[in-house]
């Protein structure tokens, strides 16, 4: 398949073929959009919306066919002609569904009836316009066809990734604001009720901090994570500098074994560490975690930093050495200031690992006074604790890391890409 060959005409480039292609595009989008809007509105309102899939498939097909048949160049969103496919979509969805496009009579919930219909029709119209933008009736070729397909796939990509990220996030946050009874009564109705004042949805959070000691868990987690970052950097900065800059026997072996050690999973280490810590009395003790966490993050920090230190221009350091600075002085006043971004990335990455760590916290901590957030949230996973508490705990453990992420996204992404060999 060479790029130089001239595009070949195919059956899809003939008018009938173009119509058929557009029709399939519209049909699929009719399904996707109506399911999406139906499910989305159901999750927000709690109403029993159920799209008539056949209706919307045909509505999409009709709209797309009309759009393709218009023979218009680059039909714009505002151009009067674009009203034709819109009208086709609206008409088909109303008529074929018997005025109940979401199996919901207009009398039952007029607002939801209208909103679901309008949003679906407009979204369908918009996506058809956007994805069939390259279609020229009677003037198709491979390039245009693939471009249209590409646009369609792209739109689907946004929908797909939007849903798989937003849906869990929505469920996570909204469930934490409900009560167990309300959830069991109608699991679809995730909208918080403010019937007893503005603070009612937050009662799970209030209970977590008041009765479940989550303030302490948060403090423990913060303490451990920050201490892990500090200890890791204290060890990793000199270590990685030596491996990347100084020549000494065994250097190559060391630099190779870093990644190897990095790949050893926690589960292989947990049995002996458990046994040894139980004997030494380090279980149920934050000191135990403070030994284990830096040791497990150290290889990745060494790995990330040595790569970065190699990139610092050697000439700058040599100039410092020529001027009579000692090696340590050179590191302190030349290399480290140049490496602040890398240090930030490593710190954030290590912080994230420590904050999110589950296995060791789960195995080593039994005393609720010592719990980290991860361990605390797991302790909420029992039949005696209502589900919204578990979700509220999950939110509490997620929010700090997300805030840090948003605040320093650049460094975080940098950290993920250079250290993200782990995960």
């Amino acid at each position, binding site marked *: 398949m060479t*790029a*130089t060959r001239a595009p070949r005409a195919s059956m899809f480039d003939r008018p009938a073929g173009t119509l058929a292609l557009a029709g399939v595009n519209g049909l699929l989008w009719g399904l996707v959009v109506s399911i999406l809007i139906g499910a989305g509105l159901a999750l927000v309102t709690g109403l*029993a919306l*159920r*799209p008539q899939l056949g209706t919307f498939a045909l509505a999409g097909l009709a709209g797309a066919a009309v759009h393709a048949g218009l023979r218009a160049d680059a039909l714009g969103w505002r151009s009067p002609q674009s009203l034709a496919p819109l009208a086709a979509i609206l008409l088909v969805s109303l008529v074929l569904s018997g005025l109940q496009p979401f199996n919901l009579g207009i009398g039952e919930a007029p607002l939801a009836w209208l909103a679901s219909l309008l949003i679906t029709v407009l979204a369908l119209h918009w996506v058809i316009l956007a994805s069939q933008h390259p279609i020229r009736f009677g003037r198709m070729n*491979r390039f245009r066809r*693939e*471009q249209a397909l*590409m646009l369609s796939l792209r739109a689907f990509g*946004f929908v797909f*990734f939007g849903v798989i*990220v937003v*849906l*869990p*996030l929505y*469920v*996570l946050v909204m469930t934490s604001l409900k009560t167990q009874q309300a959830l*069991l009564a109608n*699991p679809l109705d995730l909208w918080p009720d403010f019937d007893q004042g503005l603070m009612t949805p937050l009662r799970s959070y209030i209970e977590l901090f008041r009765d479940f000691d989550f303030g302490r868990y948060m403090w423990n987690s913060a303490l451990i994570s920050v201490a892990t970052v500090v200890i890791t950097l204290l*060890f990793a900065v*000199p*270590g990685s500098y030596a491996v990347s800059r*100084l*020549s*000494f*026997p065994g*250097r190559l072996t060391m630099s190779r074994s870093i990644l190897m*050690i990095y*790949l*050893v*999973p926690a*589960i*292989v*280490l*947990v*049995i*002996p560490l458990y046994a*040894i810590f*139980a*004997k030494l009395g380090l279980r149920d003790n934050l000191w135990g975690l403070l*030994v284990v966490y830096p040791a*497990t993050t150290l*290889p990745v920090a060494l790995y990330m930093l040595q790569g970065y230190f190699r990139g610092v221009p050697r000439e700058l350091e040599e100039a410092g050495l020529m001027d009579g600075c000692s090696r*340590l002085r050179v590191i302190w006043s030349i290399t480290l200031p140049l490496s602040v971004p890398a240090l930030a990335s490593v710190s954030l990455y290590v912080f994230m690992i420590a904050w*999110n760590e*589950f*296995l060791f916290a789960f195995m080593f901590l039994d005393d609720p006074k010592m719990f980290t*957030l*991860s361990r605390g*949230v797991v302790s909420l996973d029992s039949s005696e604790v209502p589900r919204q508490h*578990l*979700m509220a705990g*999950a939110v509490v453990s997620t929010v700090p*890391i*997300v805030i840090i992420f948003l605040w320093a996204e650049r460094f975080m992404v940098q950290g*993920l*890409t250079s250290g*993200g*060999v782990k*995960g």
Partner: protein
Amino acid sequence: MTHASPSMRDTAVVHRPGRLSRRESRLAFGMTLPSILIVMAIVLFPLLTTFWISAKPIELADLRAPEVRAREQVKGEAVTADDVFLLRYKLRNSSRDKPVLDVRLEDSLPAGLVPLELDPRCELAADRSLRCALGEFEPGQSETLNIDVRAEQAFIDNPESAKHSEVVMTGRSLNPLLTLDFTRENFIKAFGVREFGTVLWVTFVYTIGGTAGALVLGLFAALLLNQTFRGRAVFRGFLLFPFVAPVIAAAFTWVVMLDPFSGSLNTLLVQMGAVEAPINFFGVRTIQIQIFGLSIPFPLALSMVIAFEAWRYFPLSFLFILARMQSIPQDMYEAADMDGASPFQKFWALSLPQLAGIMAVLFLLRFIWTFNKFDDIFLLTGGNAGTRTLTVQVYEQAFALNNLGAGAAVAVLVFVLLALFALVYFRAMPEEEGL
């Protein structure tokens, strides 16, 4: 080499380990030593210990040191001076299979009580503390220590129960980790069971499925984001959420969302007419899928766990692939445009070959990490419903069945397989991808 030219002498100075380079070595050792020590202590030493434990008959309960427990009884009563009553210590080794060595009892007698006849192993000090050196207690051995005491006037005036002070028992026991008895039983127990084949199979299906899923999703996400549009940075941040969120939050969200009774997604599926009754996604091993009248068994829980894995880790491959995409020289695409290449031709003939290297490296790396994963499955299903991988089996054997030795045996297998994969990785890793 005294007759060498000046330039040669220079090189000779560089290559001989001179004072400077020795100093540099010393400095380097000093700088790397802390890292080496802590990694040795917390990674390499436990790794060796795993091998050691895997060959030892050791259970979780063995970690608790056996101890001799004491119960103190007072028989009789002193009403007037010179009344005699009995102090009794009932002692028992709480462990049924381990001796306790060098057992010592310590208690203090109330003022004014005088022992009539003291057991030869005991002595009463001037500060009224009673100390007994009782020697070795066999497993399960119990003994009763009787001491007749006479009450003096001081006791009658100021009666104090002898049970008031606490009996302190001390003793030594053999550290089960340090004994020299070995067994092959662990490996037989861990690998001989019938489910072991299933575990191995599930591990590889999970690892390959999760890796491939994360990679394909990552590639699609990278394709989406490899163009400029409004809100691109925000969308990218959004996509990283599954990976950045703590695993407990992500896993429990899925569990709650798919709960058969109160899960929103399950209810939604029922209401949309996709399924007739709510499905217990993480609790059912296989369901039958009807296609064209054929009934095909489908491993449900395992598929859900794989989907979770792909969902949670696609952001990582997405970041790597996107970074690689953005370093592909744009003039290649411009040339292809000049030649009239179609979008898919550009993708197949230009982008994919450029991405093949990073995809291969990512596959190997993700394969290793997915193979290592424990948290995700443990939190989602606890390893039930046909989702038990080797790592979950380590936990199951060691901490659910309380057999540390068998758990360590599985861990040894995990490590050996991992070492094999790592070997493949280091062999196959192209230098220029530089991961």
